[in-house]
């Protein structure tokens, strides 16, 4: 394995919870001791239910939110030790794609201004070549360069997400974090944007962190998967291994919840995700775990294992899970749509 481009060490962040008159009443521990490595040129997916801290983790990794503790090593350098100015200069190498393309573009900037902004901030091309470069970027993401002078409100969600992707690519970053980059889009558009991301990752050799709850998309493009539950990583491994032989009961439940998976209701989780203000003692998943025993309330299980790690005391003794079927529903749907659009692309030339 190549050296990690990004490595998180024991990262933690809590958001203070205040009562009506502003006194601190504990904290939501959104991210609680996460360690992860993203090798150069790989695609890591972070999956989990909403509220498990995956978006916070993405922002912590870029130091858009200040962590309470831990290290963010980007090319071996701890981002937390950088001065504000040095951090801004470093942002050239790491970009974020937001979930909601209707909110992530400044409504008072034309497409050209938005895409040119990183070029200007980091002095990537001389001003005279800006228009040219923006046109290249727009056609790279499948938009006609003539649209450069238009305003965001004139575009559809899919087109806006392409603009956001072009903006993220403008500074030629080494790392891109996609925070649910397709989940706000229509299903048909999702497939197109996933295709685009996949092409870009392959052709530009991007290192990509995909934050998502869509297991179909994840299985499709990720090399490795990290499963988060209540601010912690519960399982991490190669995509195939995690999907075929999940070692943590939570991962199994997630996979079972994919529609059309057909593992019966027994595998589905009951109850709600516990409050992150007062997480359960020991293993955080024990309140919903069908295999929980006394030890689970006492000792938090470490993330154990070499290549395929899981945080469960019984990961080696769990009854064999029915292996996730080769073609899970989400992936199948996506594949069909992608096949359709690839086909159409060949028939009609460039899309959009």
């Amino acid at each position, binding site marked *: 394995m190549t050296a990690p481009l990004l490595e998180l060490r024991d990262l933690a962040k809590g958001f203070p919870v205040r009562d009506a008159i502003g006194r601190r009443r504990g904290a939501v521990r959104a991210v609680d001791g996460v360690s992860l490595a993203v090798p150069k040129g790989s695609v890591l997916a972070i999956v989990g239910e909403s509220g498990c801290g995956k978006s916070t983790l993405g922002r912590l990794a*870029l130091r*858009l939110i200040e962590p309470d503790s831990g290290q963010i090593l980007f090319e071996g350098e701890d981002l937390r030790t950088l001065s504000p*100015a040095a951090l*801004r*200069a470093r*942002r*050239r190498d790491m*970009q*974020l794609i*937001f979930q*909601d393309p209707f*909110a*992530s*573009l*400044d*409504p*008072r*900037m*034309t497409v050209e201004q938005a895409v040119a*902004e*990183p070029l200007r*901030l*980091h002095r990537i091309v001389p001003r005279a070549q800006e228009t040219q470069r923006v046109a290249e970027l727009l056609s790279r993401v499948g938009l006609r360069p*003539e649209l450069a*002078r*238009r*305003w965001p*409100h*004139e575009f559809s969600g899919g087109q806006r997400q392409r603009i*956001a992707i072009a*903006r993220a690519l403008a*500074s030629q970053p080494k790392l891109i974090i996609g925070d649910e980059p397709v989940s706000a889009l229509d299903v048909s558009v999702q497939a197109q944007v996933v295709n685009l991301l996949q092409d870009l990752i392959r052709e530009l050799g991007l290192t990509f962190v995909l934050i998502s709850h869509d297991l179909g998309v994840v299985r499709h493009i990720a090399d490795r998967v990290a499963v988060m539950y209540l601010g912690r990583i519960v399982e991490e491994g190669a995509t195939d291994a995690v999907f075929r032989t999940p070692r943590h009961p939570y991962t199994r439940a997630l996979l079972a919840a994919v529609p059309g998976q057909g593992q019966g209701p027994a595998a589905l989780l009951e109850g709600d995700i516990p409050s992150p203000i007062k997480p359960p003692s020991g293993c955080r998943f024990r309140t919903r775990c069908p295999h929980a025993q006394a030890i689970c309330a006492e000792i938090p299980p470490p993330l154990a294992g070499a290549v395929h790690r899981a945080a469960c005391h019984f990961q080696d003794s769990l009854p064999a899970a029915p292996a996730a079927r080769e073609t899970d529903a989400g992936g199948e749907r996506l594949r069909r749509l992608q096949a359709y659009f690839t086909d159409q692309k060949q028939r009609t030339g460039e899309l959009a």
Partner: protein
Amino acid sequence: MSATAASPAAPAAPPARGESPTRRAIRRFVRHRLALAGFIVVLAFVLVAALAPWIAPYDPIATSWSRIRKPPSELFWFGTDENGRDVLSRMIWGARASLMAGVISVLGAVLLGVPVGLLAGLAGGWVDAVISRIADAMLSIPFLILAIALAAFLGPALENAMLAIAITASPVFVRLSRGMALDAKSTDWVEAARSLGNPPWRTAFVHVLPNIVPPLLVQSTLSIAEAIIAEASLSFLGLGQQPPAPSWGSMLNSAQRFLETAPWLAIAPGAAIFVVVLAFNLMGDGLRDALDPRADRR
């Protein structure tokens, strides 16, 4: 099947340059009749004030014993005052004082209040707390009382009155821009600006400021109306425009002694203040409607 699956009609070629938010607002403003009327009245008064030296029929400060308190006539459309000066000419020159006081003092209030408000909203923490408390304290004092106190402290002169009004009007802009900046701060596009590597000042002025211009513009027109009244009040009290230079407020002041014998002295400046203030308010309302983001969905 293949016959019905014909490719959909190609959409009409879109113009190369889309409609900017600004242009769209102008289009909507022009369709708003009352607002347009307000705008035209304001424009007329601005022209009158700007062209005062050429269109005023008489010297506004030349006195004459032979024509004291003459009622309106063909020669003196609005009559003459207690010193024999032409009321129309004084009105025209007085428009300068009023409009300048309105526009310049609000401009000052914006230049003072908006950066401070942006700082408070975007920086947060104790900076925000200190700035907000000061603004709240100033807002708790009635507008005119504070303006009078400041003007009296600075000394009677039109410039000082304008400065006093600017300071008094600025907390509104601090508060407004702080609130808007707070809103903006929680949006993805401001976070995106940060993640692209924008320094804080650039985020504030290149991203946040252009997006909060609409409410600031509306507030400015409404504040100008208020400032015109404040200037008239200060001049009425002798704290603004100094005699013999004319101002609507000081004209009203000298007119009050002759309300029964020479009512035209009070009617003209009073009506002028009323019309200008109304026009600014109509314009402000129209701007608010034209710039309303909720009306975006066409």
